[in-house]
C-alpha cells in the first residue's frame, strides 16, 4: 500500500504540479488548500511526508510546522517546507526536515520525494 503524502499549497497550479510529482514518486497524495484544513487533517492521519507552503491562508505554514514537529504521534513524518523567501527558509532550517526555495521544479520535487519514499 502506498504511503500518504499531504500537500498544503494554496496555489492551484503548484498544488497540481506537486501532486503529480509526489504521485510519480509513488505516494498516495492528499492536497489541501489552507492551514486550518491541514491542521485538522494531520490530527487524524499519519502522513509519511508533508509538503508545506510557508505562505498559507488562515494558519501559517510556520505554525503548522511547529505543531507537526511538536506532535509525538507525527514524529516519523517528514516535513518539506517550500518558500520563495530565502530568509524565511534560513529561519526554519533547524525545524523542517527539508527546505526548498521556490521556484521548485517538478523533477526536483519528484526526485527528492522518490528518495524519501524508498527510506
Amino acid at each position, binding site marked *: 500500500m502506498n504511503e500518504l503524502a499531504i500537500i498544503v499549497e494554496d496555489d492551484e*497550479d503548484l498544488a497540481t*504540479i506537486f501532486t*503529480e510529482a509526489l504521485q510519480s514518486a509513488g505516494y498516495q497524495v492528499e492536497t489541501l488548500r489552507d492551514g486550518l484544513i491541514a491542521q485538522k487533517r494531520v490530527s487524524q492521519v499519519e502522513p509519511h511526508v508533508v509538503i508545506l507552503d510557508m505562505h498559507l491562508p488562515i494558519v501559517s505554514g510556520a505554525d503548522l510546522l511547529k505543531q507537526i514537529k511538536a506532535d509525538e504521534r507525527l514524529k516519523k513524518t517528514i516535513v518539506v517546507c517550500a518558500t520563495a523567501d*530565502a530568509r524565511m527558509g534560513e529561519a526554519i532550517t533547524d525545524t523542517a526536515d527539508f527546505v526548498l526555495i*521556490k*521556484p521548485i*521544479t*517538478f*523533477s526536483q520535487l519528484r526526485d527528492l520525494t522518490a528518495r524519501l519514499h524508498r527510506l
Partner: protein
Amino acid sequence: MKITQRINSWLEVPSSDPDDARRRRLLNIILAGVIILSALMQAFTIWLWFTTARAKWIAGASNIFWVTLGLLVAGIALFILNRFGPGWLASSLFLFVMTIAITFVDKPEQLVTGRSLFLFTLPIVLASMLLPSWTAFAAAGMSIATLDFLVIRMAGDQIALIPTFFTLGFIALLAWLSSRSVEVALRDLRKLNHELDQRVAERTLELSAALSRERIESGRIKAILESIADGVLVFDVSGIAIIANPSLTHLLEVQDDQLIGATISGFSDVKTMDTYNRGILNNLLTNPSRQLSNYRIQWGKKTLSVTSAQVVDRDGDQIGTVAVFRDYTHEAELERMKNTFLAIVSHELRTPLNAILGYAEMLKEAIYGPVNEKQTRAADRIMTNSLRLLDIVSDLLDQAQMEAGKLSLHIGPFRPADLIENVHGVLDKIAADKGLQLTSELDPELPEYINGDIARLQQILVNLINNASKFTEKGSIHMSILLTDKQHWSMKVEDTGIGIPEDELPKIFEAFRQVDSTATRKYGGFGLGLAIVKQLAELMEGNVFVKSQLGVGSTFSITLPINQARSPK
C-alpha cells in the same frame, strides 16, 4: 545759558552773506555798548538832576544829558536799521555820526593842538571791521578831510599836521591789513567748513546707500527664506532656535512662537513623537556633521526628510546649526507603493511562471501520456524560455532591492570548489548549446573554506559568464578563482568575444544599459547583469575590474576579502 542764548539771538542778524552777518553782529555789539553806556549816563544825569542844584546841573550835566540822549536815540535807530535795513548803510551812518561826535569832543582849537587826534583812528579801525576792509582808507580819508577842514579853518597851519596824516594813513593800512587777513582767514575757514560739510554729506550718502544695500540684501535673504518650500530652522551655538521660516511652521503645523526661542530638546517636544524618532531628531540637531546628513522622521502623520549641518564662520568655528525639513510623505508613500509593487512582481509574476515551468516539465516527462520527439523539444523550449523570464524577473527584483538597500547577504563558510562546480552545473549546457567551451581553474593555494554568500557569488559568476557568452560567437570562456594576497581572493571571467570600446567601459555597470541599444534586441537581456554584479560585489566589500580589447575579448575580475564579515550592513 538761556540768557546768553537770548542775548546772542538779539545780536545776531540773519544774512546769506557770512561777512555781512559778522559785520552786522559786530555793529550790533558796539551799538549795544553805546546804548547801554548812554542809558547809564542818562540814569546818572537824571540822578544828578534830583540831587544837585538846578543851575549847577545845567552848567555841568545838561550837555551830557542831551548828548547821551542823542546817542541813545541814534544807537537804537541804528540798531533797528542794522537789523532790518541794509548793513552797510547802518555802518556808514554809525561811522559818520562817530566822526562828527569825535570832531566835537574837543573844541577845534584843542583838537588842532593834538589833544584828541588819536580819536580819529577809531573810525578807521572800526570801518575796516564794520565795512569791507578797504573802507579803512575811505574812513582815513574822511578823518583827514575833517582834520584838514578844521586845520585850514582854525589854524591855517598845514605843515604841523602832515605827520598826523601819515600816521592816520599808516593806521588805515594796518587796519586794512589786519581786517583783510581776518576776512581771508575766515573765508578759508568757511571754505574748509564747506568742504568738510560736503565730505560729511558724501560719507553720509555712502553710508546710507550701504545701509540700504544691506537692508535690501538681508531683505532678499529673508524673502528667499520665506519663499522656499523647504522648512528652515536655525539654532544658534547655544542650541536656541533663532530662525524659522513660514514653510517650516506650515510643514510642522505649529506657530512660529512655538519654535523661536525653543531649545533643541524643547523643539522635539513640540509634537508628540516616539522615542525612536525623537532620538534621531535630537541626534541630528545636537551633532550636526560638517557634511550634509539626511534622515527621515515621522512627524505626526507626515514623513519628513531632515537635513542638518553646522553653520560655520570664516574661521571654521561652529556658530550654529541649520536644519532643513522637507515633506517626504508623498515620496515615502511612493516608496511603500514601489515596495508593494515589487512584492507583487516577485510573487505574482513568478508564481505563474513556475506553473508554466512545472506543466512543461510534466508534459516533457510524459506524465500526461506519451510524447513524441518534437513535442519533447517544444516542452524544452517552453522551459528554457520560462527560466530566462524567471531570471529576468529575479534580476529586476535584485536590482530594485539593491537600490532600496534591502538586499541582504547570507554569509557562511563555503568551499570554492563547490562554487565552481555549481556554476558548471548551471552553465555547461548553455555554453555547449552555443558551441562555446567553459573552462575553469581553481588556485591550489586557496584555503579550503572561504567566508561568503555562495548563492550571491554564484549569481555573480553566472551573470558574468552569461554576459560573456552573449558577446562571444566562438572560442571559450574561462573562469578562475585565485588567491590574490593573504586577505583577498578573486574571481575572474575571461572571454574571446567582441570586446568593449574603451569609451564605453565606464558605462557598462550602469543598470539598463548595453553598449549599443540594438544589442538589446540582438543579445537579449535588460543590461542588468553587470549592474547587479557590481552592486553585489560592493555589498561584499569587493572591487570589480574590467579589461577589454576590441575583437580580442574581455576580462572581468572581482577581488573580495577572504574573511567576509558576518553581516556587512
